[in-house]
């Protein structure tokens, strides 16, 4: 009897339980990797010469130079911070009516479709591509960046707010409606208290994202600390670039901890 039992144990596969699918997938991945790495053209000589530069960059990161370009860094940082705040405020202010319009349970059908398509356009285009177009239209500087971030905020917050409104407790809305409340009163007394905590949390989160994005869109000329960073790297001033990166990391960390603390405080 004992002989018929296997004496060793193999761990059963966890996700792909069909053996043929598993082998097929592995072969497929192997073929893809061979093809992908085969078409990869790498200039190893250039990489080797770059290592020395990389070392200088790491040294610059470890010994950041905040002083010699401090005026430029400060100007970039102020531009980034003001851009972040104004664009978040405008974006949130615009995304509230848009989010209400894109909620199936509050808006009539035509309004719903219009609002949802605005959100879809805003979400599918990347910030940097929007920034390129807005810089071409509005000229270089933080104003184009401000518009870019505000537009991106509308898509992000509008969608999440609309989804949130669609998921509210319908019984509370029903109760308010039963008192004879108008549509405006319904929004104010039934919907707003239910979505407000999350809206505040999302706005703070978006503030954080907008700062991070403001560091990027400067590369295409939309102002902020990204422009300063781009200049520093173009000039091969890696110690200044290291200082700017450390400032970005620092501000993002402060924003992240600050917003998580604020959210805890508000709830």
């Amino acid at each position, binding site marked *: 009897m004992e002989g018929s039992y296997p004496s060793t144990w193999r*761990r059963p596969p*966890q*996700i792909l339980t069909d053996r043929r699918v598993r082998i097929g997938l592995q072969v497929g991945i192997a073929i*893809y990797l061979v093809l*992908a*790495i085969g*078409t*990869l*053209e*790498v*200039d190893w000589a*250039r*990489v080797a010469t*770059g*290592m020395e*530069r*990389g070392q200088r*960059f790491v040294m610059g990161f470890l010994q950041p130079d905040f002083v010699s370009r401090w005026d430029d860094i400060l100007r970039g940082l*102020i*531009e980034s*911070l*003001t*851009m972040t*705040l*104004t664009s978040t*405020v405008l974006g949130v202010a615009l995304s509230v009516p848009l989010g209400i319009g894109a909620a199936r349970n509050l808006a009539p059908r035509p309004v719903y479709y219009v609002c949802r398509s605005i959100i879809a356009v805003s979400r*599918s285009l*990347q910030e*940097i*591509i929007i920034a*390129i*177009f807005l810089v*071409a*239209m*509005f*000229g270089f*500087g*933080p*104003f184009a960046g*401000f518009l870019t971030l505000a537009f991106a905020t509308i898509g992000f917050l509008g969608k999440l707010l609309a989804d949130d409104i669609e998921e509210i407790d319908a019984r509370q809305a029903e109760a308010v409606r039963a008192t004879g409340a108008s549509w405006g009163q319904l929004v104010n*007394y039934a919907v707003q208290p239910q979505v407000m905590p999350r809206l505040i949390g999302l706005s703070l989160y978006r503030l954080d994202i907008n700062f*991070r*994005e403001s*560091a*990027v869109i400067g*590369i*295409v000329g939309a102002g902020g600390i*990204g422009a300063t*960073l*781009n200049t520093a*790297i173009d000039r*091969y001033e890696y110690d200044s*670039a290291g200082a700017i*990166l450390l400032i*970005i*990391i620092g501000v*993002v*960390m402060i924003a*992240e901890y600050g917003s998580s603390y604020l959210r805890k405080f508000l709830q």
Partner: protein
Amino acid sequence: MSEIDHYSQVWTHRTPKTRLMLWAFWAALVALFVWCWQVMTAGTIWAFVWDAPRQAADIGSRMFPPRLSYLPELMGPLWDTINIATLGTIGGVIMAVPVAFAAARNTSPSPAILRPVALFIIVASRSINSLIWALLLVAIIGPGLLAGIVAIALRSIGFVGKLLYEAIEETDRRQIEAIEATGASGAQTLSYGIVPQILPAFWGISVFRWDINIRESTILGLVGAGGIGLKLQASMNTLAWSQVTVILLLILGTVIVSEWVSAKVRQALI
């Protein structure tokens, strides 16, 4: 019964004190907004801003009709873009796994030294956008696909590491204890107690990141890191707006397909 008389007869949502605080908050926010607005627009040339609708109409008229004959030329860069995203994701995930295990409270080999280091790596990688990573790497290792792949990999460490270490910290303690009770070594506990619990989350996170990376790798070419962004940059520099339209449509299509794939895979995993 008469005690109730001193209460207001009209119901209000908030007490007077919270109302006052709320008004003060809004006033402060508006003041801050106005101040920031003035600082930000100090250097704005308003003539350009008022000119914008005309510029928009001009660019719009140049963008249509899209030059569809440009499409075959884009297939090579598109393949490069997909490779940047995929190979970058693989590299990032490979680097993120040890970082995640070092950062998780229950698996970290040394909570005092290694854990803060791992957490710093995660924060640093997360706060720097892949475009900035690419900018740095193009300066260091030269323009090309490799810079893009490394940039995507470095950016992915933070994202995958953060989500993975949270998944590790949320593992069921009892299953791990059961494995430990059999006399398993540390490595065996990891392999039989923790890995099976986080495996679905791991694949889900990786595919999700791959989807984001496809999106991000389409623009890395703007700073010279290869892929379809390179064509975008070239078309814009030569003001070939009808080609820009084609590229943007192709990017949009790729992003939608990758989003669909990632949603399907994650649905199958959960």
